[in-house]
């Protein structure tokens, strides 16, 4: 890959009335990057990798509006990105534009584009995505649009980072902290009548017993954190010293065991759910 200064190609056109400005970004050689398939386990953004050279380069980026990007087929994207010189650089610039223009939509429920943190996050996500794409071009199977594959990677990097930032100061103990107090007086089981309330209480007790008897402490903790509390898998995994994939397997084993034991005891999930219908 050329590490020279990027020149704006003729394909990068500003919208009328918009201005170009030059942003300096860090560029790293795309070798020795970690992660699984498609880079599933990303390092935190901004983490400097050992032995990776980071070089400063400048690109022209139109802040006033998204640049027009040349349409390419999947084959053309791959060909241009694997080439050298101007073709590769224009493809990288276009791909970066695709990512940057899509991130406001992707992150709309997480971070407003007007948030001061948005520009730097988007910049880091785009940079990291381009690195990962370049290092994993051979894993693209051509079964989707190339830009969808790239955007998938960008989304994964962005949300991983946002989750990490949101939970960075919270320990697993903090996430799972046991509260004090009582439910006395609270409508624990708002069943429509006493008989239904008694049935629900009995079902809850049976499920509780199965969870205590059948699951390991680790399974129960993971199930409580992710399945019930809906804490982010990646952050729970990080704090439990594992990864998201392994945590999913742990929880799947727990769900499967509970399902089998419930069936053995005649507790059919559909019937249990029906008992809790209002």
């Amino acid at each position, binding site marked *: 890959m050329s590490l020279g200064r990027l020149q704006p190609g003729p394909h990068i056109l500003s919208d009328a009335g918009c201005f170009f400005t030059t942003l300096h970004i860090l560029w790293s050689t795309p070798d020795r990057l970690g992660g699984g398939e498609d880079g599933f386990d990303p390092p935190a953004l901004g983490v400097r990798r050992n032995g990776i050279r980071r070089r400063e380069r400048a690109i022209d980026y139109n802040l006033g509006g998204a640049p027009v990007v040349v349409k390419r087929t999947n084959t053309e994207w791959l060909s241009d990105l694997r080439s050298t010189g101007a073709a590769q650089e224009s493809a990288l610039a276009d791909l970066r534009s695709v990512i940057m223009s899509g991130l406001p939509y992707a992150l709309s429920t997480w971070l407003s584009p007007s948030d001061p943190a948005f520009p730097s996050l988007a910049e880091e996500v785009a940079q990291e995505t381009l690195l990962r794409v370049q290092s994993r071009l051979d894993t693209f199977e051509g079964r989707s649009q190339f830009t969808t594959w790239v955007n998938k990677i960008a989304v994964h990097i962005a*949300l991983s980072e946002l989750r990490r930032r949101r939970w960075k100061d919270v320990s697993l103990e903090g996430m799972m902290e046991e509260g004090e107090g009582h439910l006395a007086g609270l409508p624990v089981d708002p069943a429509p009548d006493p008989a239904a309330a008694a049935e629900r209480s009995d079902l809850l007790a049976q499920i509780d017993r199965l969870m205590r008897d059948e699951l390991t402490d680790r399974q129960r903790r993971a199930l409580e954190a992710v399945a019930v509390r809906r804490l982010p898998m990646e952050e729970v995994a990080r704090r439990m010293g594992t990864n998201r994939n392994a945590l999913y397997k742990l929880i799947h084993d727990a769900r499967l065991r509970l399902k089998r034991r419930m069936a053995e005891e005649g507790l059919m999930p559909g019937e249990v759910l029906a008992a809790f219908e209002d």
Partner: protein
Amino acid sequence: MTSLSGFLDWLRRIFRRGDKDRSSAGEASPADIARRLVEMIRQTQPEEFTCEEVFALLDQFADALERGDDVSALMPMVRGHLEICADCKEEFEALLRMLQGRAANPQRS
């Protein structure tokens, strides 16, 4: 048999913790939490895709959905995973928003 109070204590801890984080558990009654848990158990299959396996297929799944294909029939295990895994579901929804934004602004892709 473990007493009901033990389970209620567990639910109470979940119930109270929910006030502090993104989880909707804090707004849910113990019955809601029980429903959520049992629903997940009901959906559990002997063989499920992991997060990494779903991630590898997520772009195909999203493109197929955008084309109007019947993704439930084409990729039932991906769909099943997305119904259970909140993290993957968040990423899928974000990807869909990206694709829909792209469709609304075709000059950007």
